[in-house]
């Protein structure tokens, strides 16, 4: 990781620590928990889409797999939450491997269709496997997760818990991007043929990054489950998959920071627009449209532009 990223990471950490002391309203804290959860999945998806250039319109499935593994194992079978957490990761990465091997041979629209299909199948399984998942009515009564003997049972505790995960995942992702493997992933994005000719095993790397993003999705899913203590299929459908893609694109595909900003915007914006009642969806759409028209490199691209202009003036 270079100095610029380390510095930004440090500033973010300080802001995050200070935030709950300035804003004490639990509603805002709770919204920030969801920003963190969505941010974790969006960062994973950004590695896949922005870095390696492979699309997935089924990423809500991995979020759901993590969430349901935690829910079923802890609420129904009495597993330890951390045990369920890691089993969720294991399950998601195995499924990512099985799905990734055939589907990552596809490119562009075809890959989009394959991942869309995978997402829909998972959604149907959550709905129809009533004995295990509770069907459309979902699973409730999920226990809280403990960290070093402390129950994560308040919004403020969960806030720190989730954002600690996010910072860890962000650091690991930045390390990955600024490495031999990250460079190879970016080469796949630009020219798969040339990457192969330079000795990059592109098929293997694409599957690996798909698995990493699945693991991040699963982590977010488990964190979600133990926060809301209730899961039902409607949170893991096509709409959420598309929302995740939008977070990555709106934030700026070329950087994981973009994914985080995108996740923040698309999680917070609906909360602000709620006052507009029927016009909410209209304004929401207009905001997204304007961002894509005027900031084709996403919010992070716009910020970078402003920052560079500022530096030039100084």
């Amino acid at each position: 990781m270079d100095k610029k990223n380390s510095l930004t990471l440090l500033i973010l950490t300080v802001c995050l620590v200070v935030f709950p002391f300035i804003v004490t309203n639990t509603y805002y804290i709770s919204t920030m928990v969801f920003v963190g959860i969505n941010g974790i999945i969006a960062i994973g998806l950004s590695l896949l889409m922005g870095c390696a250039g492979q699309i997935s319109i089924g990423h809500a499935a991995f979020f759901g797999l993590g969430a349901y593994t935690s829910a079923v194992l802890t609420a129904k079978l009495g597993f330890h939450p951390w045990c369920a957490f890691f089993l969720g990761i294991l399950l998601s990465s195995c499924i990512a491997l099985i799905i990734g091997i055939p589907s990552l041979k596809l490119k562009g629209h075809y890959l989009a269709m394959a991942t869309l299909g995978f997402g829909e199948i998972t959604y149907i399984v959550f709905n129809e496997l009533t004995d295990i998942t509770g069907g459309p009515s979902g699973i409730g009564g999920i226990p809280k997760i403990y960290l070093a003997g402390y129950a994560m049972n308040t919004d403020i505790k969960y806030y720190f818990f989730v954002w600690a995960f996010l910072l860890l995942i962000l650091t690991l992702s930045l390390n990955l991007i600024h490495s031999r493997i990250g460079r190879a992933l970016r080469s796949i994005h630009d020219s798969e043929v040339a990457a192969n000719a330079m000795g990059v095993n592109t098929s293997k790397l694409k599957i690996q990054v798909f698995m990493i993003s699945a693991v991040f999705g699963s982590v977010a899913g488990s964190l979600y489950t133990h926060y809301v203590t209730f899961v039902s299929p409607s949170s893991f459908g096509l709409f959420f998959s598309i929302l995740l893609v939008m977070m990555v694109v709106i934030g700026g595909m070329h950087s994981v920071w973009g994914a985080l900003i995108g996740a923040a915007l698309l999680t917070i914006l609906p909360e602000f627009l709620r006052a507009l009642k029927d016009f909410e969806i209209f304004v929401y759409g207009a905001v997204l449209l304007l961002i894509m028209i005027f900031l084709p490199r996403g919010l992070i691209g716009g910020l970078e532009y402003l920052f560079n202009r500022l530096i030039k003036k100084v």
Partner: protein
Amino acid sequence: MDNVILHASKIKKTFGGLVAVSDLDFTVREGRIKAIIGPNGAGKTTVFNLITGILQPTGGEIQFQGNSITRLKSYRISSLGISRTFQNVQLFSNMSVIENVMIGRHPRTSSGIMSSILSLPKKRKEEKEVRKRAMEYLEFVGLGDRFDESPENLPFGKQRLLEIARAMATEPRLLLLDEPASGLNTKETQNLARLITEIRGRGITILLVEHDMELVMGISDEIMVLNSGQKIAEGLPREIQENDEVIKAYLGEA
């Protein structure tokens, strides 16, 4: 110096009904510059794609340093020591000039996912080494001062040189250059000719597809002529220039 480094026997490639390369035999000797020439559509680039594993041959066998590479994946062939440039430049446009060359070090380095994610000391040491070596190759082709730019900012001729630097970074034994002079002006072509002989001077064998006859005749040790996927002549530059079949293929029947 006369060891055979690459040997193709009866290689064949068809696309549906179209025969792109048919029963082609040829050898490339170590330390030489061999050129493949021929009219458009003769199958020259297809031969390159077959050697580098981008296309799988319909039939026949290709041996590199005595071992068959016929069914190997592209990235494996590259790590065995065959590298190439592309006729339509295929640079990584979202990376800086030096990062493009650093990709070439991929098969010669080993940091995996785990050491990358955790940024272990071994990885950081390797990264420094990779950057240093990449810089050497950039300086070799004369692009040392533009290492931090986007490859898209480079003029076309320099993009071709960057592709050569990237291919050189993989430390090939055999370097395949696909029309390296196309789009270059006279001065750039002269510079290229000097560079290619310098690469041979480093002990790297070169197989070249090129339309610029002055360049081909000037630097090649041996020339093979393809027409409609078949070899119609092979020999020293002087012999090829006087070959009736070749003249016919290029100029049409009198």
